[in-house]
Structure formats: structure tokens, C-alpha cells
């Protein structure tokens, strides 16, 4: 009994202590929060919100819902087998008139062209002709105006438009689309380009990451083991290109690799090849230029980890009987893994988003996802598809990051 009382008193005392601790730490926490608040706001406004909005675009499209409200509503009752009834056609005629009067038929036509290529112009002409159609029966009259309104995939398209959300853009990003009955079918081969683009993007990124690692690791090792005087010079040589704009460096590669560029002239001049080789606008040029740009990004984290490995570890391993390679491989290399993971992951993720370099030194078949995103954003003004491609790229990156972290088990390596 006495023990219980003592225990209760003890726990009360503990709670009091915790409350005091919270009170004493409150000011510090507030201060810390106030310090990060400006940056937090900046990030939310300039980064989190726009990206969130962009990702929202990938699944959200209410063009049909807002511009063709009567048609999409009337189609809710349609079974999807035969052509819709007179009531639906009447709603359509009314919507067509409205789009004509409000000059919004262009937006609907663009949206139609995404999913049903070539139907946009038919829709516009229907709208123009239907603007004079004031009395029913509408069904025959509209079919008379354009046989478009006999096609079931068109009606299914408008039926899907009843929801402000659509999976179309995401499906399209992985080369699928809606069939005539709203079923999911593969995109025809001539327009199925995105799966290849993603694979190419990952392929080029893996290649560049591997190249920067293979080239950078020995240099990082040299930097970490050299005397400070020589390593400083070497370090400047390595980071000097890092301070140059990426555009300048890419254009420099154009100068080097073009038909009559420095490399070709040298090779021809030395009689190694008789005709200038195709160096520019190739996969080779893309990977070389990207490797050059990404090299410091891979190298520096590896170097900074190597710097923290005491030279006595190798010495200890050697004195314990390990040959120089065994000591390196079993003692030194495992300790550099966190640096390798950080450097390679950084380069890989940055490579996934490359746009400028492949566009300038790569050929048409070397374009990465970034190119398509830019293309749909700036030229085609198909923000839904651009957003869907971005979202897929982002998810793939996060997934890879997670898997990589699990594999390398960075946390275990950081102990000690």
C-alpha cells in the first residue's frame, strides 16, 4: 500500500518535472521555429505549392465538366451500348450553342484532340453549325451536321468528362489510353513513346552515374591521400568547371564534338580516321557531356567521406597481415560506401531531370523525359500530360531513393 502511494507520488513528481522541462524548453523551441519560419514560408510558396498544383494537374481536368455541363450531366444515365437518346442530344445542342457564343469551343476541341486525335475540328464545325439549330428533334439534325455524333467513343469521352478527375494523362504517360468503351488499351505503337523515354532516361542516368563513379572514385582517393598542397590544386581543377554555367559547358561540348570540331579535326589530322566521325547528336555525346558536368557532384561526397577515414585504418589492416588490395577492399572501401551512396544518388537524381544537355548534344532518339515535359509545357501546352510525366518521374525518383537507402543501409555505416 505504502509502495503504491510512493509510486504515485513519484509519477506525479515525474510529471511535474516533465512539465517544467517543457516550460523551460518552450522559449528555445519558439526561437528555433522563428528562425526557420522565413525559409519555410519561402519553400511552401515557391516550391511545395507549385509542385503540388502541378501534380494535381496530372489527375484533374474539368474542361468538359465546366464547358459542356448539360451533356456530361445528361450522359450519366446513358448505358453506353446504343447511341444516347434525344434528351442527351438536346443537351448537347444547347452546350454547343453556348460554347459557340462564349467562344470556348476551342478549349473543348483541344481537349478532344488529346484523346481522340482529329475530332477537334469536327467539334468546332459542329458548334458553328449547331448555333443556328434552335428547335428539335436534335438527334437526327446533329448527326446530319456531323457523323462525329454517331461515334460511341465520342459519347464515352463526354461521359468520362462528368468527373473533374481523369486518369487519362497518367495512362498516357505509360503508353495506355481509353478505348471506345472506356476500357484501358495500349496506345498504338506510332504514338507510344513515353515508356521508351522513361527507360532511356533511366539508362542514360545509370550510365552517367557509373561513369562519374568510375572516373571520380580514384581521383577522390588521390585527393584524400595527397599532401594538402597538391590536393588543393587538384581540387581547384575539379571544381573549376563546377562554377561554370551548365549551358556554357554544354555548348563547349558542341564546339568540341561537332562535324568540324576540335576532336574530329585532331583525329583526321592524326590520320586515325579518314572522315569526320558522327560525334555530336549521339548517345555518346550525351553521356560524355553529362558525365563531365556531373563528375564533381559524385566526387565531392566521396571525397569528404574519404577525408574522415584515418590513414591508421589501412595501416592497422596492413600490420594485421592484409595485403594492400585486401586492406583497401575490406577496410577502406566499405567505409566510403556512405559517400558513394550519397554521390551516386545525387548524380542519378539530377540526371533524371536533365533537359538542356541532351537537347543540345543529343540526337532525336536521345531525348530524356525532361525534354518531353518541357515540350508539353511550352510548345504543346498540354499541362496535364506534362504534369503526369513529372509526377511519374518524381515517384520513380522517390522510390529509387528509398530502395537505395535500404540497400546501402547508410545508418549502420554512420555509427563509429
Amino acid at each position, binding site marked *: 500500500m505504502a509502495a503504491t502511494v510512493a509510486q504515485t507520488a513519484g509519477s506525479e513528481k515525474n510529471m511535474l518535472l516533465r512539465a517544467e522541462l517543457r516550460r523551460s524548453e518552450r522559449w528555445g523551441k519558439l526561437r528555433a521555429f522563428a528562425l526557420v519560419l522565413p525559409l519555410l514560408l519561402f519553400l511552401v510558396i515557391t516550391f511545395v505549392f507549385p509542385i503540388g498544383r502541378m501534380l494535381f494537374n496530372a489527375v484533374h481536368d474539368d474542361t468538359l465538366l465546366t464547358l459542356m455541363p448539360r451533356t456530361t450531366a445528361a450522359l450519366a444515365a446513358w448505358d453506353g451500348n446504343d447511341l444516347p437518346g434525344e434528351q442527351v442530344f438536346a443537351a448537347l445542342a444547347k452546350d454547343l450553342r453556348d460554347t459557340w457564343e462564349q467562344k470556348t469551343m476551342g478549349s473543348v476541341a483541344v481537349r478532344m484532340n488529346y484523346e481522340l486525335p482529329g475530332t477537334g475540328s469536327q467539334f468546332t464545325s459542329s458548334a458553328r453549325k449547331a448555333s443556328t439549330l434552335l428547335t428539335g428533334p436534335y438527334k437526327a439534325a446533329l448527326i446530319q451536321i456531323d457523323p462525329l455524333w454517331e461515334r460511341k467513343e465520342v459519347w464515352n469521352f463526354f461521359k468520362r468528362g462528368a468527373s473533374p478527375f481523369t486518369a487519362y494523362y497518367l495512362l498516357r504517360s505509360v503508353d495506355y489510353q481509353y478505348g471506345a468503351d472506356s476500357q484501358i488499351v495500349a496506345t498504338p505503337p506510332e504514338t507510344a513513346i513515353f515508356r521508351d523515354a522513361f527507360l532511356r532516361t533511366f539508362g542514360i542516368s545509370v550510365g552517367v552515374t557509373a561513369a562519374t563513379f568510375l572516373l571520380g572514385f580514384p581521383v577522390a582517393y588521390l585527393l584524400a591521400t595527397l599532401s594538402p598542397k597538391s590536393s588543393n590544386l587538384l581540387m581547384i581543377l575539379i571544381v573549376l568547371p563546377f562554377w561554370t554555367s551548365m549551358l556554357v559547358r554544354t555548348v563547349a561540348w558542341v564546339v568540341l564534338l561537332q562535324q568540324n570540331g576540335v576532336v574530329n579535326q585532331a583525329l583526321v589530322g592524326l590520320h586515325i580516321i579518314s572522315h569526320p566521325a558522327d560525334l555530336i547528336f549521339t548517345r555518346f555525346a550525351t553521356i560524355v557531356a553529362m558525365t563531365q558536368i556531373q563528375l564533381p557532384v559524385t566526387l565531392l561526397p566521396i571525397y569528404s567521406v574519404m577525408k574522415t577515414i*584515418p590513414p*591508421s*585504418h589501412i*595501416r*592497422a*589492416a*596492413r*600490420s*594485421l*597481415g*592484409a*595485403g*594492400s588490395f*585486401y*586492406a583497401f577492399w*575490406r*577496410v577502406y572501401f*566499405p*567505409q566510403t560506401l556512405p559517400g558513394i551512396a550519397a554521390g551516386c544518388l545525387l548524380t542519378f537524381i539530377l540526371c533524371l531531370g536533365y533537359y538542356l544537355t541532351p537537347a543540345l548534344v543529343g540526337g532525336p532518339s536521345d531525348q530524356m523525359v525532361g525534354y518531353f515535359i518541357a515540350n508539353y509545357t511550352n510548345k504543346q501546352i498540354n499541362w496535364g500530360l506534362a504534369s503526369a510525366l513529372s509526377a511519374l518521374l518524381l515517384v520513380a525518383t522517390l522510390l529509387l531513393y528509398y530502395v537505395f537507402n535500404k540497400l546501402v543501409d547508410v545508418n*549502420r*555505416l554512420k*555509427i*563509429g
Partner: protein
Amino acid sequence: MHHLADRRLVSSAYLGGSAQSDLTRRNKCSAGQAPALGITGMPGANDAFVKFSDVQKTYDGKTLVVKKLNLDIARGEFLTLLGPSGSGKTTTLMMLAGFEVPTQGRIFIDGRAIDNLPPHKRDIGMVFQNYALFPHMTVEENLAFPLKVRKRGKMEIKDRITRALDMVRLGDYGKRLPGQLSGGQQQRVALARALCFDPNLVLMDEPLGALDKQLRDQMQLEIRRIHKALGVTIVYVTHDQSEALTMSDRIAVFNDGLIHQLASPAGLYEQPQNAFVAQFVGDNNLLRGKVIDMDGASCTVEVSGMGNVHALVINAEAVGRPVLISLRPERVKLNPAPGSLPNTLNARVEELIYLGDHVRVRVSVGGHDLVIKLPNSDGVQVHEGAQLTIGWKTQDCRALDAG
């Protein structure tokens, strides 16, 4: 008699070469003599386990870090290389381990020259100051490393790890990572790792430098115990003289690339051969003076302001030459019976420093400061400003080179 014994002490490590003719001259008693048995009972050069023969090392081609080193280490010996930083002791160790190559001279282990033997074939265990445990391996994996390299059987490896961990009293820590251990524990693991493959020779490069004092004292005894139990030869580098005195069979005092004295701890403390050793090992009162009379083993030195002091001739060359007199603080007696000691002087107490087990009394004698250590046992009544007489024996006062 003392003098003779001293000569023999340094005889197995003579210092020579043109670069340090000065010191050679000072140590001429030892230079060039045939190696003889030291009083510590160490074997002579012929059956030396480790032998440095005229070893030199320079890093930049200008200054010698190690100058003409000759050193014999007996099998089973605990030898400490003691010296200030930059004295060449660590370089000497690294040459023995194979991480540095002598620019001249040869090193032998067990009669075999090891010039072209890479570090991993020397079969030397090594303990580093920063432990050098592999952070990505558990304690057991660390200990297994030298055994796996040697392709020992699984059962044997397990057995040896268990024994090595028990030896350093870390039996339950095998599955931990080094980062989860305290500094003292890590160093014990490093010790176990350097010993578990039964090397004939273990090198330790300031292994206790990163530990706090209490842990250091404890580890000193532990290393000493393990050395006694295994009978392994240990070469130990430190700049801490009390550490060297506690652990070693013999101590080689390094300075400026040279061994200034090689002796047992007692020999080093009681009979420093030159001014550097007298200064570096333990506390000493050093008085500068001039020899005015020499009489065999003892001499009379004139110290300005203090008068004449009778001292033992150790490194005094001739009448008229400057010398440095060394006098241990604990050998000075307060208020000795008149006429009982050859050196008696009047002094004034300037300062008392209470240190628990003893009291340091700073007195001034004719313009010189002397420090006296009084054991805190008979409650000596001394107070600042008191006038008293101090005295010491001729044997406790050594006339050394002028430094």
C-alpha cells in the same frame, strides 16, 4: 661504482655519426664500445630479437628525423621509446612496422633483414593512438580480421576471439560495433586484435594518449599484466615519462633523432647521463656552473651566487668547463645536522605548494630557485619566508654536460 654501471647501461645503444659529433663527444664513454650486458640483464646484441643497425631517416632530404640509430631489443622485452614530439620515436616505430623505409641502414628481426618485407608479412601486431578499429565491423569481426587473412579455421578463429576478449575482460562485447564502446574499451579491443594472432612483436604508438588519466593508469597495469602473461616483445612509444617508467623493462630516451640514454626505469631516473634526460625524466633542479676541481669520480663546481657544490662527475669534461648540475627535489634535506652532508647551504622559503601526498617547497639560494619535495608524512612545519639550511649528498648531485 655508479659511474661504471652507467657506462654499461648505455653501451648497447651507442650513438655516433658525424651529424651529432657534439653528442658523441658527450657520450664518448659509450660510443664505439663492444656491446656488453646491461645491468638490467638484457642479452647482448648477438641474440637481439630486433636490431636497428645504423638506421637513418629523412623525409625531405635535408634534415634527419632519425640519425644513425643503433638499438637492440631482446626477445620478450618491454622497450619504450620516450621523447618529445618530433624526436623521431614514432618514425623509428613506423620503420620497424614497415610503413616508413629507412634512407640508410638496416633493421633485423630475429636475425633476418626486413628491408624488403612489406608490412603485412612482418607478423607484427600494432596498436594505434586512435585505436584504428574498423568501424564497419563488430568487435568480433575486428578480431577475426588478422585470423581470416591468415586463413585460420572457423573453430580456431572463434576460440581465439573468445580467449582474446577474455584476456582484455570484454567477453560480452563481441557483437558490438566499435562506436558503441567507450574509449578505454575500444583500446582494449585494439590490444586484443593486435595480440590474437600471436605475433612475436607488438608495437604500440601512444596507445593511451586519448584516454583520461584514471583510465590510462588502469590500462598501463593491464598492458603490463598482458605482457608478463604472454611474454611477447613490446615496443612502446610515448611522450609521457611516468607511463614509460611504470611499464618498461628498458626506456630509450629520444631527442632530435638520437637516443640520449637507454636504461631501465630506475637507471634512467637515478642516473641520467646527460642534461636532456635529467630534464625530461622526472623533476630536477638544474644549476649551471663551472668545474673548478676534479677528484676522480667527484668534482667541485662553482655556481655563481651559491658557492661551491660537490657533485658526481658524469659528463664533465675538464676543469674550467661549464656544466649543468642536476639534483632531484626529493633528495634535498631540510635543516640537516651540521657537518653531516658535504653540500650545505642557507635558503629562504619562497613558496609552498600543497599537492596532497607531498609538499613542494620553492626556496631561493643565492639568487637561484630550488624546488624541494617534502613527503606529507611527518607534518614538516615550514612556512613561507622562513630561513633554513638545506643539504644533499654528493651522490645525489650529478655534473652533466652544459646542455
